[in-house]
């Protein structure tokens, strides 16, 4: 029951964070110099035309009214019109966001599936060559900027070896619109198009690996250190003293408690993951939020900027909420007491 309130409390906080975020971004976007109507119409437009557009966009009204109007739309899922594409921002985001989401999901899958075993192995064979290799690789992953890894992979695997494509989500010759979930790999499966699925996977691999390196290293490091930490606990000694087999002790009685710090870190990792995703997207011409967002900023496309920031923010807040719920699932102390002790 306390856990329920704990989640509700977290939910409230998340909403509050999003409201705060919207206010801050709204203000920043309006305060920076440069008249969006003027930028949209170009230097040749008359003052009258600009004033007209300003009126049409509501820019001549008080700031709080503008904000209220904006929020009103937001609640209905309307992010307003993009000045640049002349389309609804919501529509633009419907294609851009799933692209980023697909990349980030693939990254997390790769990072956890490889990071946790690496950490477990390093802890199990602590201070041996296995551990040393694991540690060096993890550290390299953490300290190397992901856009650098992206460029390196692009050069090596893409240009020289021609193993994998280095640009976009799908080959230009493939005509496929992911119109169900927006995720190519999922939609291709649903539509039963293995060729498209495979092409999507090939395009996804390099960007996802570049992005995963840092998180993989971080997960491996945290898993290693918490496994070592846990291995010294009395309950692990107890499992040994009662003849529970080594593998069961390691993968059941040690890994589950070790997973708690890993999950916590994953939530924090997520912010930098999103940031890096923008850079990696640029390198690989990935049609996600990065390209869209950068264009919006350069053109002072208010509604598009707001849309990108709000979606990213909501995504971040949602993931952290999810991690809180997962933590509660793994750790009964959180579920039962609403706190760890």
């Amino acid at each position, binding site marked *: 029951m306390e856990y329920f309130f704990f989640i509700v409390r977290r939910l409230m906080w998340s909403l509050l964070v999003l409201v705060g975020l919207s206010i801050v971004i709204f203000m920043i976007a309006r305060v920076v110099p440069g008249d969006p109507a003027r930028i949209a119409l170009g230097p040749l437009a008359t003052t009258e035309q600009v004033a007209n557009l300003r009126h049409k966009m509501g820019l001549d009204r008080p700031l709080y009214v503008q904000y209220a109007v904006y929020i009103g739309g937001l609640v209905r899922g309307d992010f307003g019109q993009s000045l640049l594409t002349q389309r609804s921002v919501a529509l633009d985001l419907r294609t851009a966001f799933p692209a980023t989401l697909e990349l980030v999901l693939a990254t997390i899958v790769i990072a956890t599936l490889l990071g946790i075993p690496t950490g477990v192995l390093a802890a199990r064979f602590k201070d041996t060559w296995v551990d040393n290799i694991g540690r060096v690789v993890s550290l390299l992953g953490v300290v190397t900027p992901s856009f650098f890894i992206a460029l390196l992979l692009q050069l090596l695997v893409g240009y020289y070896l021609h193993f994998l494509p280095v640009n976009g989500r799908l080959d230009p010759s493939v005509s496929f619109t992911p119109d169900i979930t927006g995720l190519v790999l999922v939609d291709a499966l649903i539509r039963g198009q293995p060729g498209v699925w495979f092409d999507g996977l090939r395009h996804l691999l390099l960007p996802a690996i570049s992005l995963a390196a840092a998180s993989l290293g971080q997960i491996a490091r945290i898993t290693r250190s918490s496994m070592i930490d846990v291995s010294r606990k009395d309950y692990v000694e107890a*499992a*040994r*003293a*009662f*003849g529970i087999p080594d593998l069961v002790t390691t993968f059941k009685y040690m890994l589950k408690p070790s997973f708690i710090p890993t999950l916590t870190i994953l939530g924090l990792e997520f912010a930098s993951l999103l940031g890096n995703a923008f850079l990696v997207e640029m390198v690989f011409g990935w049609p996600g939020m990065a390209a869209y967002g950068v264009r919006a900023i350069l053109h002072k496309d208010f509604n598009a900027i707001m849309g990108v920031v709000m979606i990213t923010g909501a995504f971040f807040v949602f993931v952290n909420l999810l991690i809180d719920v997962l933590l509660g699932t793994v*750790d*009964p102390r959180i579920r039962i007491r609403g706190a760890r002790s």
Partner: protein
Amino acid sequence: MTVSGPNKGGPVLRVDDLRVAFSTFDGVADVLSGVDLEVHPGQRVGLVGESGCGKSVTMRAIMGILASPPARVRGRITFAGEELLTMGRAQRQALKGTAMSMVFQDPMTALNPVFRIGEQLTDVVRWADRRRGLRRTASERRARILEVLGQVRLPDPERIFDAYPVQLSGGMRQRVLIAMALLNRPRFLIADEPGTALDVTTQDEILRLLNELVRDEGLALLMITHNLGVVREMTDYVYVMYAGNVVEHGTTDAIFAAPAHPYTRALFACVPKLSGGRAYAGIEGTLPDYTRPPEGCRFHPRCPHAEARCFERPPSFDLGEQHHSACWLHAPTEAKS
């Protein structure tokens, strides 16, 4: 003394010249330097000594849970007539938590916080069954667990079975740990200061319960403790350890009637602290550094009676049929008490 089991008359556990060293950053720590002890069927044996004297290391060596490296174990540990240190890994593993079992000390840390009590206990039974080739259904195992939870007088075993450790009090968790030790019907139990982490009243209850269970089941018990009151009440025989050596041993009555070794006398001279306090105010100085232990009698730097021959290691001298001291003061040629 009740005698049972295949090794009629012989001890359940016999430790001969047990030596344990650890490689550490400061060099080799020579912790146990030749520990001998015996536990007979149905006997309750106490192991006392100040903090750091090697009680837990002895217990871990017996249970076979010293990680090596860094530990190096030498000597002989015979259980039910079989030599533990040289037997095969599988055979050794098969004994753990079955014929020889252990009650863990700290109820707050010895249970895994993220698994239900029932699941942890079930694993203890299931893997022991598998090693012994015992076929039991899940519900038979559950029934056994509920039975033992009742035996340690936990109210509502069903609820305990489904609970997480965090939902139980310290006293209840300690009972769960006792239940865990009893699940596979051991013949020999090691208890490392059970209940010292609890408040005095609860600890008292726990010890009384343990005492009863050990008596009822006719178990042999090796109990590690700081508390001389507990030793007097709960044991038949006592080993006193100092810096990795047994310095005096004998029946509880004999030792309490006439503690002989200078270390034991100092130990008995100070009243033990309530919650198993770790300081013995009556003894000057501290335990030696195990990487550079004193030669001969390891107690000589702190001993008021130390003399030249104490730089050689004293053997164990008989003070009576069931009372022995490793101190030169008790060498038979000298007419001293």
